[in-house]
């Protein structure tokens, strides 16, 4: 009887596995942390239209790119800096014909409501105010927004004066969390974070002029190792459409077509 029970269990397990394989339509997307609010909305719309499941992983673009090089099983990669997908294409890890520039990222200076600094009037100079004890940025080593923040501080000529007060988030979402939680008094964040309803009510921001840091061209690409090329490409097609575009615009991702 025991042998029979085990046999039954094995058969059931096999059936369960076959079913799982039949339904394994999910595609997995690695995305820059600045998309942490916009992309889930886009995915929800996509799912209600097509029934397609999309799993999301967020992180610093540099980190995600390293993970992809080391065999991470992602189908699509959204990078806050086009350079990463371009390097992946050059190394045969992503498909050139799928590269799509979906937005230009914007850097903002964000301060919580309880910090008495007029960012609208002072701009970057607000960071010199003694009330700003810590300034959070993303890690310039592997987060494009971190590099943009560093460049903007240098462009303003205040980098050396504030560098001792910089705290570095592992990605742009952690940098946002550092200020949002009140542990830092100012942050150089993604506009998409400042546009989130939860952040809007908690602070104010000033948009850092685009000419003070290298353009954050953001691009998505389908990865060559993906076993679901068709589904991945279909999702990127949806991204080019008006429904996804509206969500991106809601979070301040200016589309290339609108830029000039």
């Amino acid at each position, binding site marked *: 009887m025991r042998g029979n029970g085990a046999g039954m269990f094995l058969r059931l397990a096999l059936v369960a596995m076959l079913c799982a394989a039949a339904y394994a339509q999910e595609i997995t997307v690695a995305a820059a942390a600045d998309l942490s609010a916009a992309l889930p909305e886009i995915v929800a719309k996509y799912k209600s239209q097509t029934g397609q499941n999309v799993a999301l992983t967020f992180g610093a673009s540099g980190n995600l790119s390293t993970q992809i090089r080391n065999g991470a099983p992602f189908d699509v990669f959204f990078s806050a800096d086009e350079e990463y997908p371009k390097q992946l294409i050059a190394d045969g890890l992503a498909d050139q014909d799928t590269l799509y520039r979906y937005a230009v990222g914007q850097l903002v200076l964000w301060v919580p409501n309880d910090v008495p600094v007029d960012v609208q009037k002072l701009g970057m100079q607000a960071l010199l105010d003694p009330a700003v004890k*810590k300034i959070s940025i993303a*890690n310039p080593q592997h987060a494009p927004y971190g590099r943009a923040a560093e460049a903007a501080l240098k462009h303003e000529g205040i980098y050396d004066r504030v560098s001792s007060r910089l705290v*570095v988030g592992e990605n742009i979402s952690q940098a946002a969390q550092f200020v949002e939680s*009140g*542990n830092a008094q100012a942050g150089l964040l993604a506009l998409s974070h400042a546009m989130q309803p939860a952040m809007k009510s908690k602070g104010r921001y000033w948009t850092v002029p685009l000419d003070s840091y290298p353009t954050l061209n953001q691009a998505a690409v389908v990865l060559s190792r993906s076993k679901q090329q068709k589904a991945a490409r279909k999702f990127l097609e949806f991204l080019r459409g008006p429904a996804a575009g509206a969500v991106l615009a809601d979070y301040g991702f200016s589309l290339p077509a609108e830029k000039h």
Partner: protein
Amino acid sequence: MNWEAFWLTVRLASLVSVVLLVIGIPIAYWIASSRWRWKFLVEAAVALPIVLPPTVLGFYVLVALGSRSPLGRWWESLTGHTLAFTFEGLVIGSLLYSLPFAVQPFAAAFGAVDPRLLRASASLGQSPVQTFRRVVIPLSTAGLVTGFTLSFAHTLGEFGVVLMVGGNIPGVTRTVSIDIYDRVQDAQYASANQTALVLLVISFVLLAIVYGVNRRAGMVGPWR
């Protein structure tokens, strides 16, 4: 090899293990000698950091001790800054994080001291404090060395809490584990490997000390 990060980490681990020696001994002695019926609750609380993910600790240090909480505001009025992004913040996080690695070996060693020796010492006119200093401590050296070394080694290897509350400031909160992480993420494998190897060797030596000491003293390890 990032020497700045290395010495910062050594400084952090030394300070934490010394403080844990000071506060761990009374806690451990109480655990070893108390007959209070609810003692097991205290023991469970002390052991919590062994099973809790560092993210839980990091989350509480950041939010519950941040500038929006009463506790955080009290700390800020006292020191002028929040706990996050400071060396003190890492020290406090590490004290909580490594507490059981000091207290448990201490308590095990104290508990292994033959109670007849304590009674003999008392009958010879020694006060409890003198008995503790002259009988319990000398008989517990292996456990004390074990607890001290383990809390040092455990702090050396701390990562999650530091990643969440440190802010990666060179010379202040960028410890070796963070430095290794950054290098690996950046695909600088050669330099990551250098630092990782140093950490590996040091950790092995520390654990060898722990096991060596306990081999000579019989079984008074953290795992008994």
